[in-house]
């Protein structure tokens, strides 16, 4: 079947299989930040934005994205780099496999709730699993980033 999808700002038309998952579609277009970390829709590594909302690309048929906007980390370079620097500064990660999914979902959080409490951060990121680090470094990075923005560092938007 044919689909037309705006991927990272660029309109693309493709011929796809009916059961292709969105993760395989975006990867076939070179968006390798999007990773598969589980088979059960649990890990959040495959997070992309569909019309601006974070979703699991491993669990959505590409067919359902027909006519919609899809964004991956590749399309959010500026926002991602700015926040990513805080994650790196904290040495928050070990293998880094979970990083793109976590950054995507953190960006979604910052857009939806610019001034989240610790509880709200934890709740929003509960679906982003990290097998190495124990989350403390990620939490510190998020808090420091928010503090930096509060003090008038360049906005994330």
């Amino acid at each position, binding site marked *: 079947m044919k689909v037309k999808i705006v991927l990272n700002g660029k309109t693309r038309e493709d011929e796809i299989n009916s*059961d292709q998952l969105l993760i395989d579609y975006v990867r076939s277009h070179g968006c390798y930040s999007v990773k598969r970390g589980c088979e059960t829709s649990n890990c959040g590594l495959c997070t992309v934005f*569909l019309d601006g909302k*974070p979703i699991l690309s491993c669990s*959505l*048929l590409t067919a359902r994205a027909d006519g919609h906007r899809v964004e991956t980390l590749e399309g959010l370079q500026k926002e991602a780099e700015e926040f990513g620097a805080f994650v790196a500064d904290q040495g928050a990660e070990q293998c880094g496999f979970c990083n793109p999914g976590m950054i995507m*979902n953190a960006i979604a959080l910052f857009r939806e709730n610019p001034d989240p409490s610790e509880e709200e951060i934890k709740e929003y*990121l509960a679906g*982003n699993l990290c097998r190495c680090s124990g989350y403390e470094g990620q939490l510190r990075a998020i808090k420091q980033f928010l503090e930096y923005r509060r003090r008038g560092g360049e906005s994330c938007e």
Partner: protein
Amino acid sequence: MLKIKEYVKAESLEQAYELNQKKSNCILGGMLWLKMSDRTVQKAIDLSGLGLDTIEETEDSFSIGCMVTLRQLELHPRLNEWTNGAIRDCVKDIVGVQFRNLATIGGSIFGRFGFSDVLTCFLALDTYVELYQSGVIPLEQFVGIKRDRDILVRIIVKKTPVKCVYMTHRNAKTDFPVLACAAALSGQTDNCRGYVVAGARPGRAIRIEIGTEEVMRLRKGAYTKEDLRSLAAGLAKDIPMDSNMRASAEYRSHLAEVLLFRCLSTLQERGGEV
């Protein structure tokens, strides 16, 4: 792995229903549960083009389209105001935001899963399901019906005045619940009923009615802590439990006493007029 031969975006409910009569075809909700199955589907029927993804409030009810996501339920101000935040409480620990942006209420209720937070919570409310073929029936009746090939079109929550509360126990934050409990006082002052619901027993959620006298006492705030504990224990006794990999039946029975005590205490605190 789930294999799909053909994807069909339904143009009407009639078309979707007709396609769904074939055993090899299948309705797609959010596809999260389906995706874990190992089967080949001939035609996957997508309802997402039928405008069933909104929550509408009328004078006497909330009408929730089957394609509304769990995240929409979580964020809906009026629905949560109406239910004292119970709706939000019942979905907030289901995997993660990205997951809840996909999972639908239709798939969650139609599946009648034993572990379901969503089913447990909606059973505490004055809820009906609108089925394409069988029409509108109470959710409590729907829970007991064997799965057929009908289509769940909408969930209707009647705006019967209600005080309700939802609580679960989980072994890990975003895991399936070990036990899910809800309690509600529902109806006008002169016709007020009380219910407790237990889900993830691990069997399908069941609803038990609280006696009229007990409801009156709860509303008056007349129970002492000790009395409430024995009321909770009495209700918990009537809830059949089983064992599975998450917990034993004995443990669940004990949890039920504790969770129901907490639910009833919260209801009594909110107390008074429903």
